[in-house]
């Protein structure tokens, strides 16, 4: 087996070992296997990427075996490493390994410790399959697999029905998107005759094949991407997914899995570059999602839910960038977001750990001095996501704003306006979160306050590493790194001169959000509380999350229940199926009752019937003989 195969297979081995024998092996062994194999995978990945860069940019292809040959067309399990998948592989294995290490501390007292690590490793396996697969088919296997792992991990504490239901919701919502993805794959195969994504891109680069519309494929693929990456209207599962353990939220629902949709769009950029309508859809949905989720995040009181809506919002930013043709910038934001959002989620986990399981920020406050390492890392990441220079989020967000306005491939002022408003809201709600959690007077019970403690080194160490990455990650310009394969769009001539001012606007938005949050939430959030009554309807709408869950329940849930109960259950199941089967059984019973009258018990009659039969047979054979 080649190096790429090992990268993928090592976590699978971890899953098998911990999943099958984990409970008998002891926690120490489980930790070594569960963290060691992903780290090994990361090291091999780093080696492979170094080799790739040393050998120019020729993509490395590793065929493992041929899955099926239909006609002359072969479907191969092949791994493909180019600059784009290199970035993704390093993020998945690197951030993934860090979160594994963190989990050894966070999940230390959980009785299903081995199961947790088995699932995490399973997730890594599928995620690596997703980013390394050369064929869309392999990508799809990984795509479904991460959905499965996400389902298992959201419902990790399945004894609680609410958490199990959250897992189901995530899975089902994703399936809706997957239907679109599958249709898109059929169309790609119909158009090009292969599912190898590098070949598809090459075919589309030579012009859109006859008989197929690039925009239709693009929209279908984007439906799949919007399911996985929680974009409107399929975003409803992500906030509920916070029911899972916090490291899961960091790994799956912030850093890696939810960015798979962005990766898909960037990977198939050859199609999207020819699909102007689909790209407009991507950009519009992206920016609307970003704005919508940011407004909801303003009023959430659960620390993890604020971060969940923030994730949806940031994913919207990534799609905005992809929609205006700046795929490299979208991936750049994927990377910086992976750093700061993983750090924020893990920081939130550390806070929850310190608060004995409390997640409501209204009951926190004044934690800055008590858990200083968590506070410092959380503050750095908050500044990064708010876009304060020179932290990583500033660079990626600034480029997104720039291309949203300046790109000749669909950039426009209204995209910039919505995106800027979102950036301001982002800075505001993130600093609000920071303020309510770490500053102000303590609002928790005596009991909880007494138990507040800094997390162990396995957790804080990871936080420090991620905070450093979140701070410095922006200096490595990924759009530039990816430019050989994902060229950036042309800048509209009339926008050329706007680059300098936009930089200051971006800084202003971050600082403005910070100042606004300080103004409203400083001094025990007095101004925010005073302001609340006059905005009561808006506040209600936002804390109700625009009542989208209720809307789905009314439009989809209840009619489906009605149809199932009244038509499928009563008419279909009870009347047609049960009725016909019961009827058949009754018929057989009555018929047998009639026929049993023939059995008289009179031996002479039987013998006579035998005689009659013989005579009859003789006569018949004589006549027809």
């Amino acid at each position, binding site marked *: 087996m080649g190096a790429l195969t090992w990268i993928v297979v090592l976590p699978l081995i971890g899953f098998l070992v911990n999943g099958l024998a984990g409970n008998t092996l002891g926690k120490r062994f489980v930790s070594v296997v569960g963290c060691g194999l992903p780290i090994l995978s990361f090291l091999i990945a780093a080696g492979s990427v170094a080799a790739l860069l040393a050998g120019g940019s020729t993509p490395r292809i590793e065929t493992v075996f041929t899955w099926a040959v239909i006609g002359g067309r072969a479907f191969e399990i092949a791994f493909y490493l180019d600059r784009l998948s290199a970035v993704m592989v390093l993020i998945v294995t690197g951030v993934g390994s860090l979160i594994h290490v963190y989990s050894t501390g966070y999940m230390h007292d959980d009785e299903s410790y081995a199961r947790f690590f088995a699932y995490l490793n399973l997730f890594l396996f599928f995620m690596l399959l997703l980013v390394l697969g050369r064929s869309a088919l392999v990508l799809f296997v990984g795509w479904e697999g991460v959905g499965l792992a996400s389902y298992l991990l959201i419902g990790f504490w399945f004894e609680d029905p609410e958490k199990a239901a959250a897992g189901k919701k995530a899975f089902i919502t994703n399936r809706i998107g997957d239907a679109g993805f599958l249709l898109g794959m059929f169309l790609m195969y119909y158009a090009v005759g292969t599912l190898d994504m590098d070949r598809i891109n090459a075919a589309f680069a030579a012009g859109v094949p006859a008989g197929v519309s690039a925009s239709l494929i693009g929209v279908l693929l984007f439906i799949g991407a919007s399911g996985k990456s929680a974009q409107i209207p399929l975003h409803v599962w992500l906030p509920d997914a916070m029911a899972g353990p916090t490291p899961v939220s960091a790994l799956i629902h912030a850093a890696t899995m939810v960015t798979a949709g962005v990766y898909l769009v960037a990977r198939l950029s050859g199609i999207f570059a020819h699909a102007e309508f689909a790209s407009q859809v991507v950009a519009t949905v992206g920016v609307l999602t970003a704005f919508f989720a940011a407004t909801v995040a303003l009023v959430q009181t659960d620390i993890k839910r604020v971060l969940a809506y923030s994730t949806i919002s940031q994913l919207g930013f990534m799609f905005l960038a992809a929609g205006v043709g700046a795929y490299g910038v979208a991936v750049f934001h994927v990377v910086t977001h992976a750093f700061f959002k993983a750090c924020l989620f893990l920081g939130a986990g550390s806070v929850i750990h310190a608060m004995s399981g409390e997640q409501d920020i209204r009951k926190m406050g004044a934690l800055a001095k008590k858990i200083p390492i968590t506070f410092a890392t959380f503050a750095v990441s908050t500044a990064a996501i708010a876009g304060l220079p020179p932290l990583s989020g500033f660079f990626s967000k600034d480029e997104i704003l720039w291309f949203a306005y300046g790109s000749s491939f669909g950039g426009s002022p209204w995209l910039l306006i919505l995106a800027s408003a979102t950036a301001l809201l982002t800075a505001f709600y993130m600093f609000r979160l920071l303020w309510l959690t770490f500053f102000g007077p303590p609002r928790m019970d005596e009991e909880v306050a007494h138990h507040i403690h800094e997390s162990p080194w396995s957790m804080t160490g990871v936080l420090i590493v991620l905070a450093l990455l979140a701070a410095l990650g922006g200096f490595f310009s990924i759009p530039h790194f990816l430019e050989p394969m994902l060229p950036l769009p042309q800048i509209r001539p009339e926008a050329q001169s706007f680059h300098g001012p936009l930089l200051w606007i971006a800084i202003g938005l971050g600082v403005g959000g910070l100042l606004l949050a300080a103004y409203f939430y400083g001094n025990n959030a007095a101004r925010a509380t005073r302001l609340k009554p006059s905005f009561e309807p808006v506040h209600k709408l936002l804390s109700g999350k625009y009542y989208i869950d209720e809307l789905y329940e009314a439009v989809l849930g209840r009619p489906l229940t009605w149809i199932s109960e009244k038509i499928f259950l009563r008419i279909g199941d009870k009347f047609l199926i049960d009725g016909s089967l019961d009827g058949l059984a009754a018929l057989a019973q009555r018929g047998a009752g009639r*026929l*049993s*009258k*023939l*059995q*008289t*018990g*009179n*031996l*002479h009659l039987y*013998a*006579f019937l*035998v*005689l009659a039969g013989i005579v009859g047979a003789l006569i018949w054979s004589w006549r027809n003989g």
Partner: protein
Amino acid sequence: MDKVQLLLSLSIALFAIGLLGVIVRRNLLVMLMCMELMLNGVNLSLVTFAHQMGQAVGAVLVFLIFVVATAEIAVAIPIVLLLVKRKHSLDIGAYNDLKG
């Protein structure tokens, strides 16, 4: 009539007597005996045909049937004995319990 026709007529006669006996008589033991008559009528025809075709296999088969018939009687007689023990009667009419 040549010898073969004679023998076949005898075999049909045996079979018919046996069958009539089973149908008409009500005594269990007599019915069993009549069944044996039917069997032997068939056996006779078998041996006759075997002789006519000059095949020894038929004659050997007859011996096999004798053995089977013996075994059958060895099972049938105890059943009759048990039945008689139960109802103290050899009349077939006493045993028509197995009606639907």
